[in-house]
Structures are given as C-alpha cells and as structure tokens.
C-alpha cells in the first residue's frame, strides 16, 4: 500500500506483483509458440478429434490463464522478480550438455569426470583439486554401480566418432 504505481492522481493506490506479471507473460509466450507450432495440425470434429484439437485448445486455455495472471498482477501484492543466478545455470546445464555430448562418443570414463568438474563450478565454493579428485572417484563408483552391479548397457570406454 506504500507503493503507488503508474496510477493517475486521485485513483486508489495499487499494488503489483512483478512475479505474476512475468509469469503470465511467460505462459502466454509458451501458448503462442504452441499454437504457431501446431498451426498445421487438423482440429477435426468432436466425433473424430483431430491431432490438433487438444494441443491447440490447451494452448488457448494456457494463454487465458496467463492473461488472467497478468491482469490480477496489477491488483494483488506479490514478490518482485528475483535476479537470475547465471553462474549456477551455465555450469549445471553446461555440465549436463557436456555429459550428453561425450557419453556415447567417449564413454563414461570421459563424460563422468568432465561433466562433474564443470558442474561443480556452479558453486562459488568450488575448488579445482577437490573437484577433480571427487569426480574421478565418483565416476569409478558409478561405473562399478551402473555397469557392473546393475548391468546397464552404458558405454564405459568408447572411442567412436
């Protein structure tokens, strides 16, 4: 109530939830994307629904929900948007991607340590030496566990391009 936002003088003071505003817009964007992607799908009739009937109507409902969120965000109080932690995001997702791209080509023996070392830098407490030692030990453990104890067909050593 202490905040006064873009209201004209004399209007009742408004609260605003930045989080809901952003979230609503995000959902609307997803909905529009789905409608664009599904635009070539036949809708069909109720008797024989086409492939597009459900995705498209769900996307519209999502857009409606998002719009409702955007509208109510101007009248309800809520938290502001938090800052994104880019460090965590980049290193964790980077580690996952590295795993995906190396596991079939080189095997777990390369993919394991590499992705774990990259991933561990997502934390600001990371220490290189510790991360390397831990990654190697964990990989060895994983190989024993997944490959030998459980017998999963995961490549361990592989040099195939």
């Amino acid at each position, binding site marked *: 109530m202490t905040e006064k936002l873009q209201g004209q003088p004399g209007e009742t003071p408004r609260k605003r939830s930045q989080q809901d505003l952003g979230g609503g817009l995000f959902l609307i964007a997803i909905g529009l994307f789905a409608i664009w*992607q599904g635009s070539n799908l036949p809708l069909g009739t109720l008797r024989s629904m086409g492939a597009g009937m459900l995705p498209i109507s769900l996307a519209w409902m999502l857009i409606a929900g*998002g719009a409702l*969120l955007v509208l109510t965000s101007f009248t309800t109080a809520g938290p502001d948007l938090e800052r994104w932690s880019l460090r965590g995001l980049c290193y964790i997702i980077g580690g996952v991607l590295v795993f*995906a791209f190396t596991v079939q080509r080189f095997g777990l023996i390369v993919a394991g340590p590499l992705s774990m070392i990259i991933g561990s830098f997502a934390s600001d407490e990371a220490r290189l030496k510790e991360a390397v030692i831990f990654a190697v030990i964990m990989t060895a453990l994983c190989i024993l566990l997944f490959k030998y104890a459980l017998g999963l067909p995961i490549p361990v050593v592989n040099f195939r391009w």
Partner: protein
Amino acid sequence: MNEFAANLALGFGTALSLQNLFLCFTGCMVGTLIGVLPGVGPIATIAMLLPITFGLDPVGALIMLAGIYYGAQYGGSTTAILVNIPGEATSVVTTLDGHQMAKQGRAGVALGIAAIGSFFAGTVATLFIAAVGKPLSQIAQFFGPAEYFSLMVLGLIFAVVLARGSVLKAMCMILLGLLVATVGTDLVSGQERLTLGIQDLSDGVDFASMAMGIFGFAEIIRNLENPEARDVVKSKIGRLLPNWQDIKDASLPVLRGTFIGGLLGILPGNGAVLGPFAAYTVEKKLAKDPSRFGRGAIEGVAGPESANNAGAQTAFIPLLTLGIPPNAVMALMVGAMTIHGIVPGPQVMTKNPDLFWGMVASMWVGNLMLLIINLPLVGMWVRLLQVPYRLMFPAIMIFCCIGIYSINNNTSDVLFTGFFALSGYALLKFGFEPAPMLLGFVLGKLMEEKLRQAMILSRGSFMTFVERPLSLALLIVSLIMLIIAVLPAMRQRRDEVFTE
C-alpha cells in the same frame, strides 16, 4: 475359509523355500538400490535382468522381479525426501512434505514413517489380494474410457489442492503439464505434434527427464544461489526414527492412504499413479490446519507413501487374475511369465496355484524384508546429508545424467533434461510450483487417450460422461472438490481486499 488357509499355506510354503527367500531378498535389495538412484527405473532393470532369470524356475524368477518393482517404490521415496527428486510419478507428492521435513532436520522421521507406512500398506494390500483379488478384478470391467476420463478429471482437481500458493497459478501449471503431454505422435492419426521436427520427441517427453530437470536440476541451481537454504539440512540431524507421537499422528493417514492407494491400484491404465495424489488431497482436506501441508506435515508423507505401496501391490491383481497388465512394468512381468512358459491369463490362479499364491506370500515376505533393509539404512541416509553441498550436487548431477541416459540408452533424453532444467528454473523464478505441472503431465496422456476413445465410442456426444452413472458420480465428486478447493482462496482474496 479352509481353502483360503490352505492356499496361504501353499503360498508360504513356496515363498519360504531357501531359494525363493534368497531371490526375494535379492529383488528387494536391487529394487531399493534402483529406487534410490534417480532415473534408473524398474523397467530398465527388469529388462536387464530377464536373461539372468532364464536359468531359474518361473516362480523364483517372478518373485525376484516383483521384489524389484515394489522395492523400487520404497527406494524412490528416499530420494524424494533427501534430495527432492521424484524418480517416478508416484513419489512426486512425497517431495512436498518429505523434503521439507528433511530441511527441518526430520529426515530420519520422514524416512522411518515412509518405511513403516509402506510396510503396513504392503501387508494389508497383500492380504487383500489373497482374500478378494479375484472378485475385485471385476472393478476394472466397470471402467470404460468415459469413466476413466472422469477419474482423470478428479485427478486434476487433486492437483489444484496440492498447490501451496495461488490456485490460479496451480491451474496454469496443470494446463502447461497437459500441453507438454500432448507432444509426440498422435495416437489416433499417427501425426507428429509439437515435436519441432525432433525425431526423439516422437514418443513424447519422458517423465523422468522432465522430473529430473524441473525438480532436480532447477532445485540445485536455486539452492546454490542462497547458501542459507542448503545448509539447513546439514546443521540439524534430529531423531533418526519416528517416536510414538509421530506414529500416532501418522496412523490414520496410513490407514486411509492404504485404502485409497489399494483401490486405485486395481484400475487398468496405471490408476496407481493417482493413489498418492488422492491420499495427499484427502489428508490436506481432513487436517485441522491445512496450512501445515507443504511445510513438513508428517501426514503428507505417511498417507501418500502408504497409498503408493498399496497401489504397487494391488497393481498385480489385474495381472494375476485377468492376465491384463495395468502398466508398463506389469507388461514386462507378462513378458517374464511368457518367457518362463506361463502365458498369463484368467486361469493362472487355477493352473499355476503355486505361482499365484507363492507370489502373494512372497510379497508380504518382501515387504517385511524391505522394512528390515530400510530402517537401519535411515541412519546412513541421514548422515549422507552432512556431505558438503559443493560435493553433493555434482554427485546428484552425475547420478541423474546416467539414470536418464539408461532409460532409453539415448543421449537426447539427457539434452531434454538440460532444457527442462532451464525452463524449470524460469518457472521457479516466476513463483510457479512444479508439482501440479508434473501431475498434469502424467494424467495428460491418459486423459487425452480416454477422452478421444470415449468421444469416438459415443460418436461425438459429450453426454456419454453424464449418462454413465459411474462417470457422472466421479464428475460430481470432482465438482464438489473443486468448490472446496477454490472457496477458501476466494474468501482469502476477499479478506485481502477488506484489509486494504
């Protein structure tokens, strides 16, 4: 009654042979292990173990494979409670209060109550199968596509109740989950939908890669940005096992959970998935102070965990009495039986009584073993939480990566997980909760399938959902649930307006 006793005697005679005890134990151990490991599910493991069972007799082989299945349900809750990662759809709800309990230093209590509740539920469900399995299997026959669709609607209402915060946001998340569920090949026409031209999406999004992404990885990134949150777990240890007060608090939820989960488990088409969600909803609605839920309420762990395990047992009913597998794991059990020369069907009970009763008895023995395996492990798991987070999260990461890769031996699943981590993080930042989205996703596929089947069968008339009594009843219950769920939120809104 005499016959019942004789049957049970035959069953225990089979299950308690030295070889079968050993196989049951092995199955339970392997099951617990794969349940704890995120991503590695019972399907991959049972498929890998099929060749090994070639040399065994059919009863022993099936006892072991069944042990893996329900053992995995026990193990799955451990990961959900400790690191907030649901390995399977059925442990999504356990993360809500289970992980909160862990953060409050009550991880031991949560794990303990999950194990005890599961054991109780397993025992009751086993007796259930033995006593009334055959007549109960007829329930499946009352569920046509229309009834199933109405049941799914009810399931979606549960998802609204699950939400801690805004009802509107929860509904949006359900819709998003439903939308993601439509990705993949269309069941009716075979057309690809919303796959962005990626071939690996033609069978849709995999549950595990989505759950790992938006629960596991997004949560890690979030934990890393506020150091206080991640160290809470470490600083407090608390009691290792539940005390009498905890057990008293949990006893009714366990009973109710067992009943709900057991009943839903019988339904074909994976009704067991609904069990934990339904149990959670019931507990939250019956609680004197529903606001405790989502903040570490023991009922929120006890109810769903019992429902989960009861459902895991009763899911065997359609398989053993009708020969019809209700879910993917049971379809694999059909394969296992066939490999051993037993074609599953309605006559397994009469043709192979030692198999039927042996398996039933072994399920109880297995549940007892799981309790004995899991209670001592609680201490170990809790101590594992003391590992510094900077070492713990890379370990979780690598386990998840390997687990996801092993589902289909496919790297694209790992890539999708990376994508879901990013979108899950964005959703968290916008204040959305992931649980309703996952439920929407799980139910979405079934729901569309059943909706379209029902509409095809009714030749395009929506009246089919209202004309069929069971379907109508389910829809009425859904409506009542929705009103109960939405009313408090509306009242709250009004209160807010008035205070302004």
